[in-house]
């Protein structure tokens, strides 16, 4: 993000300003107003309203809407299902982001080397990312189907397995299969970000290193990585924020199952609210997710402001 004037500019104040200044400011507010109203109405108010709902018992099983203070939060923090879903969310996020970062850097390195047909590979690279998330999830559910899925058929034909594997049938295996499906679609995003980072490294640095007798590994370790570090940092934080909210692919691949094996925090919230109609507790979970996200967003923005040149 390169938007000037975020850093180092002192706040503009009204005091001792000529009338033109007021006119300009009023004009600016008029231009911003529609967007601002939408943002406040669709983000700020709902965010706090979720907190307000979470202080009540809003449950279709019970009549009325009694104020119960922090009871929903007490229930949440003493609830095994909640902590289990937090653990699964952390597992999903950590494994996805780390795997995709490592593979993303490797693939970006590959695509940064000259070879015949590179332009074709680079163009096709974005294809998985273009496929809608839900379609991607459905496609992988079909590929991983326990009886007639393509993966089972392929592995049987190659003689690598003797019997069909029910890929989405066991909790831990299913979780990893969702990560596989997610990685197929998201890897291109990592690759293009890292590729942009790699292309910014001056070529003569490598030449100089090679003259000094550096091996390919040395070049990677002492030239590529230090240059790529800011990009890696931004990608890690940004993708953690975005992976943490995973919902769509879980909905179509496993619906939180089997045996809650893929019941991540967003899915638990959805289930609690819209399946069990427990709006109060659902809102508490939603608010927890919101606060956690804002915390991470704060770290992200600080990082970004610290390194406005990073991307």
């Amino acid at each position, binding site marked *: *993000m*390169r*938007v000037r004037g*975020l850093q180092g500019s002192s706040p*503009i104040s009204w005091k001792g300003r000529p009338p033109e*200044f007021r006119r*300009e400011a009023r*004009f*600016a507010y008029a*231009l*911003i107003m*529609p*967007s601002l109203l939408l*943002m406040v109405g*669709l983000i700020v108010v*709902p*965010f706090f309203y979720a907190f307000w*709902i979470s202080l009540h018992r809003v449950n279709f099983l019970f009549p009325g809407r009694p104020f119960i203070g922090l009871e929903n939060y007490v229930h949440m923090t003493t609830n095994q299902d909640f902590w289990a879903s937090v653990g699964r969310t952390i597992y999903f996020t950590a494994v996805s982001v780390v795997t995709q970062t490592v593979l993303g850097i490797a693939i970006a390195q590959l695509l940064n080397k000259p*070879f015949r047909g590179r332009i074709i*590979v*680079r*163009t*096709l*690279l*974005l*294809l*998985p*990312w*273009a*496929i*809608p998330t*839900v*379609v991607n999830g*459905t*496609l*992988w559910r*079909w*590929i991983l189907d326990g009886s007639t899925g*393509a993966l089972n*058929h392929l592995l*049987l*034909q190659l003689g690598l397995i003797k019997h069909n594997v029910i890929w989405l049938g066991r909790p831990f295996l299913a979780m990893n299969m969702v990560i596989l499906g997610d990685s197929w679609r998201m890897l291109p*995003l990592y690759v*293009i*970000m890292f590729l942009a980072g790699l292309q910014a490294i001056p070529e003569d640095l490598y030449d100089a290193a090679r003259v000094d007798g550096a091996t390919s590994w040395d070049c990677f370790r002492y030239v590529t990585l230090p240059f790529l570090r800011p990009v890696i940092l931004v990608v890690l934080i940004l*993708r953690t924020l*975005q992976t943490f*909210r995973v*919902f*769509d692919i879980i909905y*179509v691949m496993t619906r939180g199952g089997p045996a809650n094996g893929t019941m991540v925090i967003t899915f638990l*919230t*959805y289930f609690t*609210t*819209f399946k069990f109609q427990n*709006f109060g507790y*659902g809102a508490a979970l*939603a608010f927890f*997710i919101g606060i956690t996200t804002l915390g991470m967003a704060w770290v992200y*923005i600080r990082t970004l402001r610290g390194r406005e040149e990073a991307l």
Partner: protein
Amino acid sequence: MMGARSRRIWHRIKPQTFLVYLGALLLLLWTLAPAYWLLASAISPSHELVAYPPHWFPDNPTLERLQAIIGSKMLRASSMQTMAAPAAFFRRAILNSAIVASTTTLLCLGLGSLAGYAFARLRFPGRGFLLILPLALQMLPPIALVIPLYSLVQALGLIDTLAGLILVYPSFLLVYVVWVMTGYFQNIPEELEDAARVDGCSRLGAFFRIVVPLSTPAFFSTGLLTFLLAWDEFLYALVLTSARAKTLPVAVGEFSTQFGIDYGMMMAGGLLASVPPVIIALLFQPLLVRGLTTGSIKG
């Protein structure tokens, strides 16, 4: 069998070059194989889909499902029963998605560019705060907002309408548009506007006559990404629609609960859902890559 000449060529190829080509080949395979299976499954007759040994290339490819959805051909009586309802289900969803995604995109481009212009050109108290705050707010995931937004849309009587979705979608698109347009407008030389204003143009007039025409590429590339994100959206559409206003992702995601497991039909719907974004991604790749690497948006 290798001739002397080709053996010499093999010797000349450095192992590193070999590894690069091997890597590229594996990458292509990993990228294309699942996408190919989406296509192949959509056009394979149902009995070939479940056959073992598998028909990696369908013996009798058929466009029947796709034609049924698009409605370009009357169905044969035999397949009428099984295919008509799912096809109509998808057809309606395609229309809904197209309307919602394009309307939201135009709305966000219109409102977002006005705000972007103010941030780029004008000085006013609260500028920095108003620019940074939404950036944090926009990171809030839909699940954190969907419960209150559901109440809002319900109160307005807009559940299961396209208007309800169009109202809610700016919540995850508008900030992105404002930021990208702000950055773009800052790069347009201010002198051009000053000249117009000397000639008697108002500030707003200068914006519409000078800045907007000069920013066509930015509007276009921002619009593409906004459209793709709106086209992909799932959670809001899932919660805020129940029948008539279902978008394509919801139709694909809910298909099996409505019509049972029919992977051929699901892949046909999925294929059609993928056509617009895939065409956009392949045709306008450099634009998208630039947008994705400078902006920080949902992947």
